[in-house]
């Protein structure tokens, strides 16, 4: 059986909160979400576009980083993690705005995937006070994640239970999983699984432990080919990533980026790769990611 391209599950990844590099704050209002959730045919019919959204926090109002290697530049502390949770439940932006767009346009369900803040292992203070928590203690890293996830789930059930937005699951906050993260990832994912939620890893094609993604208790993984057109990774990486992902039941990241390492044609090649793989391989799934928040691709 061939998997129809239309059947491929597509998630769009959006940066949220502050970003110093682009000197802006991503609030995501309803009018910004609308062109991502619906598109218009030439005859005027409006059809669902993306129905799955991955929200990735960048920086807090204090300028501290939430995810990735950036979390090791100036890491987010407890007050920043709380700010992220609060951001998820602010009215007229983010998830709330998404729910509004779905309501207004009769979209029955929109899935939301939340990228978790990353607690970098090492001598990073998370919370001061009588019982300080530091990320050089594995238990403290795990507790920070547990507390935050619990708060999100509790508030989600109060705020969004009667809306079309559904919390699909959580996304690990780093592309790589070094040795120090393995236990925390396994335990955190196991716990999220027990709550009936998905666990997604946005990895690179050649990231360490990619092939062990199931052992790490992820329920899904999406690979980035590292092809951008202006770096040393050629088109062969793009196609090999597609084949590898298809053979191993993985998703792929489709990037539409701007900046010094991106050439203007890379997005077309990504689309071509997705179409080739999804039409040939039963198991292929695609997670779509825009590096910048411009829906330049039509799927």
């Amino acid at each position, binding site marked *: 059986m061939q998997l129809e391209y239309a059947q491929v599950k597509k998630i769009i990844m959006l940066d949220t909160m502050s970003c*110093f*590099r682009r000197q802006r704050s991503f609030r995501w209002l309803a009018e910004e979400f609308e062109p991502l959730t619906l598109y218009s045919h030439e005859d005027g019919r409006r059809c669902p576009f993306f129905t799955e959204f991955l929200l990735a926090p960048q920086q807090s109002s204090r300028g501290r980083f939430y995810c*990735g*290697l*950036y979390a*090791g*530049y*100036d890491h987010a502390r407890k007050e920043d993690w709380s700010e992220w949770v609060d951001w998820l439940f602010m009215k007229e932006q983010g998830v709330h705005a998404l729910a509004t767009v779905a309501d207004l346009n009769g979209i029955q369900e929109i899935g939301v995937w939340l990228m978790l803040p990353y607690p*970098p*292992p*090492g*001598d990073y203070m998370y919370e001061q006070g009588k019982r300080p928590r530091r990320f*050089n203690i594995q238990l403290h890293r795990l507790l920070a994640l547990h507390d935050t996830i619990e708060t999100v789930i509790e508030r989600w059930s109060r705020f969004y239970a009667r809306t079309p937005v559904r919390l699909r699951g959580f996304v690990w906050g*780093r*592309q*790589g999983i*070094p*040795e*120090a993260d393995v236990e925390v990832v396994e335990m955190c994912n196991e716990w999220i699984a027990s709550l009936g939620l998905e666990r997604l890893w946005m990895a*690179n*094609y*050649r*990231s*360490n432990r990619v092939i062990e993604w199931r052992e790490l208790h992820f329920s899904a993984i999406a690979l*980035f080919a*590292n092809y951008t057109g202006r*770096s*040393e990774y050629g088109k062969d990486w793009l196609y090999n990533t597609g084949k590898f992902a298809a053979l191993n039941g993985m998703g792929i990241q489709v990037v539409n980026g701007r*900046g*010094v*390492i991106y050439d203007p044609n890379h997005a077309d090649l990504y689309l071509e790769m997705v179409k080739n793989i999804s039409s040939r391989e039963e198991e292929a799934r695609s997670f779509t990611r825009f590096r910048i928040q411009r829906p330049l691709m039509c799927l």
Partner: protein
Amino acid sequence: MKILHLPLEVGGQIAELCLQLRALGHQAVGYNWRHNYLKYDNTLLHSDAYEMLNTLETAITYFDIFHYHTGYTLFKDKTDIERVIHAGKKVVMHHRGNDVRIPSRAVKGQHYFNPYVYTGDSLPEQQILSNLSYFSKHLNTAIVQDYELYDYAADYYRNVHILPRPINIERIRPQETTAPHDLPIVVHAPTSRAFKGTEDIIRITEKLRREIPFHFILLEKVPRETTLSCMREADIIVDQINCGMYGNVSVEGMALGKTVVCYLRPDIKARLPKEIPIVSANRDTLYDELKRLLLDEDLRRRLGKQGRLYAEAWHDAKVVAKQLISIYETL
């Protein structure tokens, strides 16, 4: 200053520099893509080339100084350096050994001949020369850790600074009380047997053990902390007997107050501080030097104390970090 060290750790030195730079009020971050049995702690961000590359654009915006190590860059063709420079950021290359140890020149130079040196771990000569040409075309300044490497880099860059290997003097210190061992303990901890002369060291110590009783401990493929804890128990530490300049093991040994044996090429030794207490030995002299040290406990104790003072004077990471800041200020 916001400083990014990349892309790998070198014997725990990058982590130490980052810690000291942070203590001086700078924001210092280090990437490491080298993961091995040494099992470095989490001072640096352990990652891989792919993840590092994906941060490049943000890193270029965020950091003021890009401090590359060991001739490695994120792109194989090394052009990420040009992109960083193009963005108006400062860049320095820190050469560490095999990336600049030009095989032909390692053996013979204007003022030296070293028949012992092993260059099989070095990059091919043409590649070293090509890399040096490329780097020095784009960078004015390089850092090296000693005079041996200085000579390789000096012909290329406008400025070459010698930055001694940093060590945490407070953490790596002699034991408070040391009960004498029944037999002296000699430790050798190679990361590369051929480079350090391990086969000769084993052969010579075996011969010597037939005459004088002592323990010989060979530490290989063990985490750095295990090596350090064994070195704390040692009486004599043999670093290497080939290269001609002392390395990390010697510095750690001196900081621990141990007697250190390491081959110092005569022309390099002449440029080092006169008080250097390292006992120089190569495969032709190791037997005699080691025998002398094994038979003279007072000499070992004296050299150990001198070694500690030398490490405090020349390798204290706090001092080295300040030297590094002054280098950054010239970029």
